């Protein structure tokens, strides 16, 4: 019997190369799963396209009623809403797929840290959001003559702010599943929709009752959609408001990471991770 082990087969686990490889592993896994699932490929563009066509017809109707700015306001809103919704749902789905495929334990006993795991999920969701937005932008232009470049320079921070907000909500959704079990999947799906009526996606926040306006101004997305309308109305990008939204995003992300960490510790303490594998 030999007692001498062969040379170490892995990279130094705490080194940057190993950390990068582990993040890449999460992205590679999600990409392979997507590539092998035509239905999921279809789903990436199906719902955004349905919403775009639906709201596109609404804008055509409003145009006949001489409602000013209707096309840009509504189509821009649909497009940015998809950024928020997809950013939230995609990282939840990636996590839930580990549960559905009974692979979660394999991931949890690997040296992948929670931060690396979440970065991997975020990178992959970024790719999917970018793809969906590209398809929707092309459709907007082809079907309704609306180019997303009408939002000017503001488009980049608008999307970035919504991405971060979506990831924060997605993390809270994952935390709910870790805390309450698979039955809490509905929270992961629906949490982002709570923001829909409050953030003034399709209408100015000023139409909300005063108490809800206060709540709305605590949501980063509100400043994005208000900013979008300002820009499409010919105004300048409201950088001050976007900076406030960025600050709120930092708070949201910090809170959601803390909630995720707490839920993971709870799941480990109560044996819930093990039960996901059964």
């Amino acid at each position: 019997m030999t007692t001498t082990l062969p040379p170490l087969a892995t990279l130094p686990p705490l080194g940057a190369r190993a950390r990068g490889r582990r993040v890449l592993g999460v992205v590679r896994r999600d990409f392979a799963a997507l590539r092998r699932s035509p239905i999921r490929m279809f789903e990436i563009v199906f719902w955004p396209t349905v919403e775009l066509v639906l709201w596109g017809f609404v804008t055509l109707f409003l145009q006949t009623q001489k409602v000013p700015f209707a096309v840009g306001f509504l189509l821009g809103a649909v497009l940015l809403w998809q950024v928020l919704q997809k950013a939230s749902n995609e990282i939840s789905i990636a996590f839930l797929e580990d549960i559905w495929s009974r692979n979660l334990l394999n991931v949890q006993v690997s040296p992948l840290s929670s931060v690396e795991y979440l970065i991997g999920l975020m990178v992959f969701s970024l790719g999917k959001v970018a793809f969906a937005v590209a398809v929707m932008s092309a459709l907007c232009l082809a079907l309704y003559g609306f180019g997303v470049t009408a939002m000017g320079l503001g488009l980049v921070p608008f999307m970035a702010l919504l991405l971060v907000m979506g990831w924060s909500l997605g993390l809270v959704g994952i935390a709910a599943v870790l805390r309450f079990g698979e039955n809490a999947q509905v929270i992961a799906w629906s949490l982002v929709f709570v923001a829909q009526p409050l953030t003034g996606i399709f209408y100015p926040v000023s139409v909300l009752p005063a108490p809800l306006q206060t709540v709305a101004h605590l949501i980063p997305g509100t400043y994005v959609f208000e900013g979008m309308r300002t820009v499409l109305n010919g105004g300048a990008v409201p950088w001050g408001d976007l900076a406030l939204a960025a600050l709120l995003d930092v708070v949201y992300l910090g809170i959601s990471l803390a909630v995720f960490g707490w839920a993971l510790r709870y799941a480990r303490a109560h044996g819930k991770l093990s039960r996901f594998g059964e």
Partner: protein
Amino acid sequence: MAILEARSLTKRFGAVTAVDGLDLAVGRAEVVGLLGPNGAGKSTTLHMLLGLITPDEGSVTMFGKDLHRNRVEVLSRINFAASYVDLPGTLHVQEVLEVFADLYAVDRPAAKVAALLDLLELGPLRRRKVMELSSGQRTRVQLAKALLNEPDLLILDEPTANLDPDAGDRIRTLLVRLAREEGRAMLITSHNMPEVERMCDRIHFMAEGRIVASGSAAELAASFEADDLEAVFLKVARG
């Protein structure tokens, strides 16, 4: 130095004490079996050793480092396979191994994956989706995954539970060879007593969350005045 050392491990779920002050050690190249009836606390113990469950009391040290403080370092040197865990079903066998080669930051992953496909006789299945494989084939993929990082310690929860006798025998032969020739330590649970007799250097019997008997298969049979390990198991299970 023991590769794995657990001291006074205790886990309670509400009023139930699943594991009660368990001490356990596994040395290099040693194959240790953890046996006991359903509900004895075997899987809870393994999951505490893997960091999936946080113990209420006690400590887990691997390679001289505390598991909970050195999670990434420790987990990169061990691996795990279980009959109740699966792999992403829509991925091809080779893709699954490539993904886990990344997650374990395996050096020269292409060569390692190719070698394991060959070792586990998975070459002809490399382009098949995991969900299309038989349970025996999936078990081989699980083991290939578990060997990717050339672990110093393999934790196996009923590794041959879904296998026919031929496939089970091949896997046991492979695992014994890995322990004897490459010095890999293993901690195994199983309900297959001949398997445990063949593979394990040392066996711990658990009942109601505690280790109630330890020794080699021969020592246990002698101390329980039993013909074989199966008879020992029945005596332990029936109190």
